[in-house]
């Protein structure tokens, strides 16, 4: 798979929600990405910052990076402007494979887990039309709902505080979906506890693929920082989120 160190100019910096920014950057190399892959971005810190692609526009050689400002690295990124250049390793990792068009498909995203699912929806729309469930803490932080709608998709929203859509987590709408769609396939991305819950809910009912987050060092498979426990041939083993992941079949993993 292609992956390089690229210097990618920022084409646009847009606020998408309070404390949430999307950068559109120009890079032919990065625009070869699969949905679910990520960019490892140089910031002033000691480590690069991993961010998934929110959009992958191969035609125009552009990709999107949508992130929440949570610390120094993302704050620095949020302040970068049109014309500034980001130093990025990527595209990295293994993303979402194409869904099986013969089976119902659902995307379940929580918080900043939504953007890579949008990239997956946009990429595989010609094969299959997913149902979309978006969770967020509050109405303001529901990401990309309009983008999904622009793809013609139905979007179910759940917010922790009930300010938009269902009150509660994505698990309510997902349960309904799982009951309505036996033998479905679920792509999920979001906070780890959410993914654990999605994985448990899907067990025996749907095939779940989850995109994980883990603290990373190198981002390219050398340092073994970013591991998750998985079922090995004989006993438990570690897999690297940056290389074997970030997308894993939920049943591979030990939660």
């Amino acid at each position, binding site marked *: 798979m292609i992956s390089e*160190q690229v210097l990618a100019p920022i084409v646009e910096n847009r606020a998408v929600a309070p404390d949430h920014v999307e950068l559109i950057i120009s890079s032919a190399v990065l625009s070869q990405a699969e949905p679910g892959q990520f960019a490892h971005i140089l910031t002033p*810190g000691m480590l690069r910052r991993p961010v998934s692609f929110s959009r992958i526009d191969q035609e125009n050689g552009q990709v999107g990076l949508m992130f929440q400002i949570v610390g120094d690295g993302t704050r620095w990124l949020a302040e970068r402007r049109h014309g500034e250049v980001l130093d990025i390793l990527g595209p990295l990792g293994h993303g979402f494979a194409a869904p099986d068009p013969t089976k119902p498909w659902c995307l379940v995203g929580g918080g900043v887990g939504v953007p890579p699912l949008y990239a997956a929806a946009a990429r595989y729309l010609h094969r299959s039309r997913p149902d979309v469930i978006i969770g967020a803490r509050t109405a303001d932080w529901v990401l990309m709902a309009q983008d999904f709608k622009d793809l013609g998709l139905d979007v179910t929203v759940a917010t922790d505080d009930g300010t938009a859509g269902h009150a509660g987590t994505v698990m309510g709408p997902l349960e309904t979906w799982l009951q309505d769609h036996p033998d479905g396939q679920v792509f999920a991305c979001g906070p780890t506890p959410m993914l654990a819950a999605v994985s448990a809910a899907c067990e025996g009912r749907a095939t779940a693929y989850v995109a994980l987050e*883990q*603290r990373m060092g*190198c981002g390219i498979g*050398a*340092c073994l920082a970013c*591991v998750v426990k998985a079922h090995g041939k004989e006993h438990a083993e570690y897999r690297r989120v940056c290389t074997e992941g970030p997308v894993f079949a939920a049943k591979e993993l030990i939660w």
Partner: protein
Amino acid sequence: MDVSVSLPRGLTLKNPVIAASGTFGFGPEYSRYVDIGALGGVSVKGVSPEPWLGNPTPRVWETPLGLLNSIGLQNPGMDVFLQEDLPFLRDQNAVVIVNIIGHTVDEYAQVAARMNHEPGVAALEVNISCPNIKEGGMSFGQDPDQAYAVMKAVRQVTDLPVMVKLSPNVTYPGLIAQAVEAAGADMISAINTLVGLAIDIKHRRPALGGVTGGLSGPAIKPVALRVVYEVAQSVNIPIIGMGGIATATDVLEFLLAGAQAVMVGTVTFQYPKRMNEIIEALPQVLHEYGFASVRDAVGQALPGRAPIRGGGQ
């Protein structure tokens, strides 16, 4: 300009810049970004007789200009290493230094014996910072007698050039260096990481899965230079220096403090091509400060060398 380095038992490096163990995997991962053939050498991730699983996550945490890691020496074991990992580096014509680890003296000797006469293995680096099981989890590198025992056992089973990698977490690194020199070490590499801790305030617990971790990166450079400088005055074998190197000027500092070559670790995570850039910049930097070769600079800041005191500004 001559940047080559001649080390004991015929070990020759085309330049003094070696990838540091644990930060460069077994080579292929970085090969997309790094010109491995241009490096002075590659020290691979620590290898034990059997696979080690390593520590729980999180395994890395940023600190002020430093990096804490608690990888826990995860590795696939020596047999898998030889079958699956070594061939790649051998094909790149890399000078491969196998970093060896064990929980007992015997385990170190097992790995050393297994590597002997393996084509493509240029040298061994004995990492004595592993927790030793027999003596209650302290590391072999924190006691001169145990360090001696490990090196002695390794020496008995190999003709390869062997360096011992020192822990800075001891009162007198020079004493450990003397012990391993007496046990037949050909070289010293220094330093391994400093033991550190970070607190995850939100969750009110140590940030790393392994609780404490090893501190690397620019933050530790002054400590690394001190250890190199101290050890250079304690033993008569060459030193490979490391700890926080990020530029060619940093390399020169280690040479002046007494190192013959260096290893570069943490900075590679930020700048994968940095080792190559350092190698390219080094001749110019040496020249600028009046050195005609790498060898020329080694140990020039040690006591007894007439310091060049600058006149004027």
